């Protein structure tokens, strides 16, 4: 699950030039895409952007810091509700965006202050409550949330001067915020905080001995994840223009976690793939047969965990490793097989431990 390990080391300059070209091509494609694609494709891409930001937040707290968080959808819902309320009140849209992030961040901070004390898996047990408490809470606070009816707010209609359709205008708004979020997220996990996250995930005792407070790091990661969640809630409302208690249901939270793991835990690109998974796979399975959606999601998650523990983002690397075959000699000093940070123990291990006993009793 660790960060991207280069398999072959090309000259740095060529690699970097290649990357720049790739980034420019992708950026141009994204800028032109909404103008040529049909509305449905645009809406799908928009929703991928929305959920990619939520998955990115989840990745920061779970993929990079190792805290299982089952409540990320709660922060998306919270951001969506704050946005809807702010738009209804006629507040400035930039202020609404900031509020969606800040309120989600504050709630996240409060949850983390208590949950991070427990450490380990307890944070999962506490965060599972967020969506489950959130749904009745959203129904109860109907003054702000519109109760079970939900609340709708439109603020992303294309202005006349742009000459764009609504879906194209929304596309650009969401592209802007999503790109900014991913840039921020990337810089964060590559910088000193990212290293602190990694150390805390690997070994808290080591982190503490290095002067990194595990408690504070976990609280920080959780809070940042909530802020990303709040931002994705803002985007959700920009795209869907409607939210209800259903938005933050428990099932969605599980799907979000599955999307992160399937995309690739501890990977920025993985978050993007995760967002695509979240939107596209239900689209596919629903087209085949809606009753298979839940089961297929569980099956896909388990399959990925078995076959590609580092998520879909590691697929090219695994394929390259397999196609190259065992004949090629590993380059000295640069081991060919970048062992995953935590490879599951082979199944034989417990069997081996059983051996002495069998011997005794027979």
């Amino acid at each position, binding site marked *: 699950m660790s960060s991207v390990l280069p398999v072959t080391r090309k000259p740095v300059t060529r690699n970097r030039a290649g990357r720049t070209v790739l980034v420019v091509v992708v950026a141009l494609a994204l800028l032109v895409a909404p103008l040529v694609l049909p509305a449905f494709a645009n809406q799908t891409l928009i929703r991928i952007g929305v959920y990619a930001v939520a998955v990115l937040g989840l990745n920061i707290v779970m993929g990079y810091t190792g805290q299982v968080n089952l409540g990320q959808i709660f922060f998306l819902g919270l951001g969506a509700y704050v946005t809807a309320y702010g738009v209804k009140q006629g507040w400035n849209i930039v202020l609404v965006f900031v509020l969606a992030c800040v309120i989600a961040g504050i709630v996240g901070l409060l949850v983390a202050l208590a949950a991070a004390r427990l450490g380990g898996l307890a944070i999962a047990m506490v965060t599972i409550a967020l969506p489950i*408490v959130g749904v*009745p809470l959203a129904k*109860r606070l109907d003054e702000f949330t519109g109760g079970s009816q939900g609340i709708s707010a439109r603020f992303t209609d294309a202005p006349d001067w742009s000459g764009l359709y609504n879906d194209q205008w929304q596309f650009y708004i969401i592209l802007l915020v999503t790109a900014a979020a991913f840039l921020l997220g990337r810089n964060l996990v590559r910088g000193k905080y990212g290293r602190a996250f990694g150390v805390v995930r690997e070994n808290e005792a080591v982190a503490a001995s290095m002067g990194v407070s595990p408690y504070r790091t976990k609280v920080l990661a959780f809070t940042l994840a909530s802020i990303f969640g709040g931002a994705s809630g803002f985007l959700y409302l920009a795209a869907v223009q409607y939210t209800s208690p259903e938005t933050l249901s428990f099932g969605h939270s599980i799907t979000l976690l599955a999307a992160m793991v399937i995309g690739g835990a501890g990977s920025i690109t993985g978050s993007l793939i995760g967002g695509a998974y979240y939107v596209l796979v239900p689209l596919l399975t629903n087209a085949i047969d809606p*009753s298979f959606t839940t089961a297929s999601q569980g099956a896909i998650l388990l399959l990925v965990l078995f076959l590609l523990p580092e998520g879909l983002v590691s697929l090219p690397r695994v394929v390259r490793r397999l196609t190259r075959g065992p004949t090629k000699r590993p380059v000295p000093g640069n081991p060919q097989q970048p062992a995953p940070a935590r490879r599951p123990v082979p199944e034989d291990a417990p069997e081996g431990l*059983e051996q002495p006993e069998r011997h005794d009793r027979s």
Partner: protein
Amino acid sequence: MGTFIQLVVDGLSAGSIYAALALAIVLVNQATGLINFAQGGLAVLSAYIAYAFVQFGLPLIAGIILAVVISFFIGALVERFLVRRFERGDPDTAVVVTIGLLTLVTGITAIIWSYNNLGFPSLFPLSSVDILGAVVSVRSLATTVTILVIMVLLQLLFLRTKLGLALRAVADSPASAALSGLPVGRLLMVGWGLAATLGAIAGVLVAPQLTLTPGMLDTALVYALAAVILGGLSSPLGCVVAASAIGVLENLVAVYIPLIGHDLKIAVPFVLIFVILILRPQGLFGRKVVVRV
């Protein structure tokens, strides 16, 4: 006064269901260090299996016993073929595996039996008795008693039998247990099987009340997790006490504090958790684990 006693008794009966699930979670955690989020899903599957046997024409009690026995094997097989591969690895990954399992099991029950509510026959008569002015249904009393009996049996199993000793040894340290000649792998399968059995009993006891749906125990699972946090992961007794306390407290709060009411009562245990976490991070009955560097 009558209402109060009524609420307490109802709370205890709900609490005993949470306790059964919480015990199953503690059992798996003690043996493997994992939290099994699929516990509720597996319990629902067991209830559906019992339902299928009854539909087949078997008497209810036979259906339930068969379902409980089958659940033991399902639990053991899940450990052997799914969880074992992840047991020694990253605990986060293992937890995600159980979440995948929860989704898969819920999805499979939905494919076979659909999301519609199904009526599940009750094992106990629907009549009620009068206790100190409170009308208490025989069903809730019997449910509570059943769970208590099972808890005592479980305690006896752990403290008085060789199997229990072995299970505790594996839980304490799999490596040392293996060195002293215990079949660690098989004991882990037994542990998962026992946990699934407990879950199955909770499932068939609660099904008549809630009617069968694939997501029937999602809420109960959340209460059980709250009980596990409050009681401490290392203390079965603590979990049962915490589960009962949560059941009673939420019932009282729902009626006596209108601001919270029935729809928000699920928030009660978690508010409690937040308060307690600040004061006693190891849980009410848990031991403090000292980490030495």
